[in-house]
């Protein structure tokens, strides 16, 4: 399913309750999700206005600690907030491959 950055932002903020991060530069927009017991999830919004290509979608999915298929489902609404939050409790955190 083609996903535009604006749609992804809309879903993350409205459905999954991500909030804009207070980053120091104005070059990028970041969204964060802080939940008890897990590392803060953060993702950088793409500058692009076009649909997200598979590679970039994969990178963003990793930031959100899901895979691309799961991210697609988050956007098309077959994965909801409760399911995503539950997923985060067990999803592995990338600690730099350490």
């Amino acid at each position, binding site marked *: 399913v083609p996903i535009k950055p604006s749609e992804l932002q809309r879903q993350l903020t409205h459905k999954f309750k991500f909030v804009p991060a207070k*980053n120091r530069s104005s070059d*990028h927009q*970041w969204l964060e999700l802080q939940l008890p017991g897990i590392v*803060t999830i953060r993702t950088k919004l793409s500058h692009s206005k076009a649909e997200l290509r598979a590679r970039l979608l994969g*990178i963003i999915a990793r*930031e959100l600690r899901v895979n691309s298929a799961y991210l697609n489902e988050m956007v098309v609404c077959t994965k909801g907030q409760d399911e995503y939050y539950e997923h985060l409790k067990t999803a592995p955190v990338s600690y730099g*491959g350490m």
Partner: protein
Amino acid sequence: VNGASVRYHDAFGLRDTYPMSVEQSGESSVSVGLDAVPDIHSAPLILLGRLDDSLALKGPLALFLEEDGDGGFIVSDLPLGVYGEGPNATSALKDYKSALADFFYLVVDKRNASPEDAEYFRLVTRYLDFSR
């Protein structure tokens, strides 16, 4: 290192001389930061040295440059999951470096938010930290 350029070899055997920033950081050490790369389809890159006036990498950070399939380029790293994008490889790299600095400051700002964020901060600082 030869003047202001470095001969670069990548894993695919590509060899060329690209403009680099070279910064003398002590009598016996030199840090090198990528400033520009050609628009090749995909290539591993190594980023070293300072990100800006206050941040520096603690060691080499492996990056990957690739086309995004829409005429643009993406630079990303595996360890931290940060990416940059742009219409050409050089702008994607610049965007990546800026995003990495943003990412670090966000991690710093949240380091006391939870024990998990404190641990994450500690791990991120194995890759980059405030420079002196």
